[in-house]
């Protein structure tokens, strides 16, 4: 599903975030990107979501070289992805249901289909009944779960998350991780960047360790 081939990333301000990173993640695998801050975890996710382009090397998503995707094709590409951020990035001026429905509205789905999928996604994250609430009325954990619902409502093949449990207490963090595991169980490829080592230990999943823009250790269970 994902293959990084000698990828270098240098930002405009001169910072070298990735210095020759190569790895591969199979379809349906669940992998953690670990490492201290500044190790390059977010950069890898940005390269996957085509927010950034590699300075050198190649990134393959679904056997497609991202270098071949022109700016005009990026929106189409991103619809195959589910992205979860640390700060959930919900739109506060509309109810939860509209937030979750956004990817489907963009895809031009019918209203009836959208309502069905939104309810299903909210059910999967345990928030059925909160469709009409505004994001600010929810707790942090609930807001994070809305973000996850939005990421999965389009039934993406690949789910990426950048520090999804960063703001949450341990119990809540575990709940969220279990949610990701459930999605992985039904076949979604899941890549999570996190520096919460304790959490990772609870899950028998592949670990890609990063340090200073390079792969430091690769380990964990085989898929």
């Amino acid at each position, binding site marked *: 599903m994902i293959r990084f081939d000698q990828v270098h990333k240098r930002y405009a301000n001169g910072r070298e975030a990735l210095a020759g990173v190569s790895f591969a993640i199979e379809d349906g695998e669940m992998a953690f990107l670990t490492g201290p801050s500044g190790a390059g975890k977010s950069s890898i996710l940005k390269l996957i*979501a085509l*927010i950034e382009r590699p300075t050198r090397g190649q990134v393959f998503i679904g056997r497609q070289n991202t270098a071949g995707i022109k700016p005009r094709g990026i*929106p*189409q*590409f*991103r*619809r195959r*992805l589910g*992205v979860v951020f640390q700060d959930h*990035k919900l*739109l506060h*001026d509309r109810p939860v249901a509209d937030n979750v429905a*956004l*990817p489907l509205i*963009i*895809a031009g789905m019918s209203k009836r289909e959208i309502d069905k999928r939104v309810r299903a996604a909210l059910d999967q994250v345990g928030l059925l009944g909160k469709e009409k609430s505004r994001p600010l009325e929810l707790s942090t954990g609930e807001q994070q779960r809305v973000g996850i619902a*939005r990421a999965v409502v389009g039934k993406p093949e690949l789910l990426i998350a950048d520090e999804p449990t960063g703001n949450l207490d341990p119990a809540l963090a575990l709940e969220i991780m279990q949610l990701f595991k459930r999605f992985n169980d039904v076949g979604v490829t899941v890549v999570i960047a996190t520096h919460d080592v304790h959490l990772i230990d609870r899950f028998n999943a592949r670990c890609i360790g990063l340090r200073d823009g390079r792969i430091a250790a690769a380990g964990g269970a085989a898929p």
Partner: protein
Amino acid sequence: MGALMTMAVIAVALALPLFLNVFLQNTRSATANWNQVFDISVYLDKKAAATRAPALAAQLRKRPDVAAVRVVTADEALAEFRTASGFGDALNALADNPLPDTLIVTPSVNSSTLEGMAALKQAIAGASDVQTVQIDTEWVTRLVALIDILHRIIWLTAGLLGLGVVLVVGNTIRLDILNRRSEIEVMKLVGATDGFARRPFLYAGVWYGLGGGLLALLAVAVAIGVMSRPVEHLALLYGSRFQLKGVGFGMSAAVLGSSVGLGWLGSWVAATRHIRGIEPT
């Protein structure tokens, strides 16, 4: 509210050329029909018989395009000139009266147009013993030329103000987009195209244009309402029953059409440019 302000600015920008244009249309229709207008001065040949003037006058009075004819004999003309000019004694030095018999022909109301009077002038000039026929239409032709220039000025002004509308709407949309920056970032991250993100701003531009156009029409209607009584009063003093005409259906439609079009254009330019520059980080 920002939206109301934007519409007000558009209204002001459109109301000015609209009002001038209405004023111009009214002036045009007013000059098309002059009642008391121009008398035609017919100067007879000095050698003509003294009976020729009254005979010609009677002939002309029979015409449908002539309302009245006044005969001014050479002696009467000299006497008028003597009193009017103050040359009294100097004129006594003249042996002969140099002035000819004159007819003052007043065209009828129906032929008070420039074409009607030109035709009448032609007809009179063809009569015998007529030396010169003079209509003082020069100032009307000048007025028409002036009106044409004013018309052009109004169009140029409208063009500039139209550009102003585009810029104002563009600026408001730009601020709207900046305010919704994070929303656009999220939309793009979830796979929205620039066109999708742009659409609500295009609708906003259309609304700004429509609102501004309606306000402009309202403002001009009020202005015309304020002006009609004094204008009609003035017309009455000139013996005319002229009434100030407001903005017609066709012009209203044109104003609304262009205000909507300008609003759409302004937002299209601004939205395309600024949404392109917003990318998720």
